[in-house]
């Protein structure tokens, strides 16, 4: 009765136009559902358009994220940042355009749990954790494992899983709060717990929507250090308003405006861009 969590990719290896073009790695054969990073790109968004009742939240948005990259997305309210994340994670289907994860996986054909399963993790703008579960249980539920009903009925924690949870608890500095209800944590701690849950999923791509909102300066800085240590192993896309934080992360910055890309480059470059200054009213 369980749906198979991972569908085969839409294109079998033989039908993939890049398969024998010489640009792909030689002798590389993909298993169904495996992420193909042979072009060093983990995410392609191409001409994405999403309209809500005539309002174009995304307007022919095109964006690529390299494997291992740490990318910041900025833009004024209503620029389409959250809608873009909705499209990548399967919550919203684009009216037009394609979203590819690696070379072969078409994300517009997968459901939210399937996308999560193949390695896209998402942190919401408002911290979304399980408030009636303990911190430990929150991490336990997020952990990468077989997530079908039948398995969950009989699942028991083994030592390795316990170690992984303990490791993550250390990393997000909540080890002392492991048995507390998550709802009792401070706002900043909730943000960290959600980031910890994301890490337990072992995603290849992390989408982080305003991860440092409501954090103290010290917490913000520690979050920045954590993200920098994750880059390389994972790819990160961070939507943020806090320019000091964006500066700390230091990667490439993409400015969204009215549903498409306005400018792209280092923070200094985009801050010098006349159009960006105009949109931000001198900010």
């Amino acid at each position: 009765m369980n749906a198979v969590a991972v569908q085969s990719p839409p294109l079998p290896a033989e039908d993939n136009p890049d398969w024998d073009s010489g640009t792909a790695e030689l002798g590389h054969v993909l298993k169904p559902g495996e992420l193909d990073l042979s072009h060093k790109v983990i995410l392609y968004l191409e001409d994405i358009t999403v309209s809500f009742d005539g309002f174009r939240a995304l307007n022919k948005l095109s964006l690529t994220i390299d494997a291992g990259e740490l990318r910041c997305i900025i833009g004024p309210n209503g620029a389409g940042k959250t809608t873009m994340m909705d499209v990548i994670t399967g919550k919203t289907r684009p009216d037009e355009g394609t979203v590819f994860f690696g070379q072969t996986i078409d994300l517009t054909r997968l459901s939210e749990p399937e996308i999560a399963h193949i390695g896209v993790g998402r942190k919401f703008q408002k911290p979304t954790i399980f408030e009636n579960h303990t911190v430990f249980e929150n991490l336990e539920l997020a952990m990468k494992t077989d997530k079908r009903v039948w398995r969950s009925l009989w699942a028991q924690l083994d030592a390795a899983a316990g170690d992984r949870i303990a490791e993550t608890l250390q990393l997000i500095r909540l080890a002392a709060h492991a048995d507390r209800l998550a709802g009792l944590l401070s706002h900043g701690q909730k943000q960290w717990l959600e980031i910890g849950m994301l890490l337990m999923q072992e995603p290849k791509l992390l989408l982080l929507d305003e991860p440092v909102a409501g954090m103290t300066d010290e917490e913000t800085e520690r979050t920045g250090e954590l993200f920098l240590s994750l880059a390389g192993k994972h790819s990160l896309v961070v939507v943020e308003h806090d320019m000091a934080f964006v500066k700390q992360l230091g990667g490439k910055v993409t400015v969204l405006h009215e549903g498409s890309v306005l400018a792209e480059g280092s923070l200094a470059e985009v801050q010098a861009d006349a159009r960006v200054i105009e949109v931000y009213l001198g900010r």
Partner: protein
Amino acid sequence: MRTPLLVRLGRSFDARSWQLLGLFAAFALIAVPIMHLLLPPEHPLHLSTWFITLIGKILCYAIVAVAMDLIWGYGGILSLGHGLFFALGGYAFGMYLMRQIGRDGSYQSDLPDFMVFLDWQELPWFWVGSDSFVWAALLVLVVPALIAFVFGYFAFRSRIKGVYFSIITQALTYAAMLLFFRNETGFGGNNGFTDFKRILGYSITAPETRVVLFALSALALIGTLLLARTLVISKYGRILTAIRDAESRVMFIGYHPLWYKLFVWTLSAMLCALAGALYVPQVGIINPSEMSVANSIEIAIWVAVGGRGTLIGPVIGAFIVNLAKSWFTVSFPEYWLFFLGTLFIVATLYLPQGVVGLWFSLRARLRRGGDKGAPATRGVGA
């Protein structure tokens, strides 16, 4: 190392809960038969037939309440049509009881009386096999499970939630009631099934039969509690409450809420059907009014009064409300619905965790400054 299932089952309750369950089992399986069968009627400890039937009936209701708590208290899915599954279980077993009447009906025919009355010459196709106890027992579980599965699949797949889901379940049970009211449907129309004579060849009104049915209901309730408790403390149970609290987060960490909801929904329907099948031989009648919307709402009231998300609370709630009902409907029949409505409002406004929550907070207050995160606020009490 994996813990064997029996050990897990043993650990699912604490020592005191096991003692209470044991006490209850001893009462239902040993004390009740002795007090009803062996003590003479004039003895002060003699239990009357009225008592056995009333409590046996409430035991069945308590199973339904626990089944409701699983989906509502733990899954956040409020069904206002659960009476449908209870009634379907009752009807499925009622078909067997009707066939057991044999030629002792008013028309001395092989067919049930209502079919003779409708001038039917032979059994409709869906009555084939209904003279077999095993077949009937199978129907009791399979038919409600299938209906729940198909209905739940489409409802959950379309992400119908909250009050919309509740309203659709109401419509479902109402439609089924109208269908069963029709004579042509083949289930006795508005009279339903009654005048049962035998079950497995034993007289259905014999005191021994009543005691056995009572004991079976008690065992079914204990089994339901064990199953439900094991389920809610498993990883599955934690995911279920997570879906209740933050469904989108559950989806984005890779679980399909559809299958998680569908599992508990179907299981809940099957438990209701089992309760219905135990209920019908004890009260001696099943008719379409069991599918009325009011009946299903009453189930939700038992759970709300007892305490959602506590498992034992709904059992207590089913007893409180139904004992009050049997007293009210004799003493002041015209005020019963007012009382029921008041009870629901009071429970919703002042007792969000029901009587069990009240008990926990009183105990915490007595111990003064006890842990603020008492089990009641977590929604996972024993």
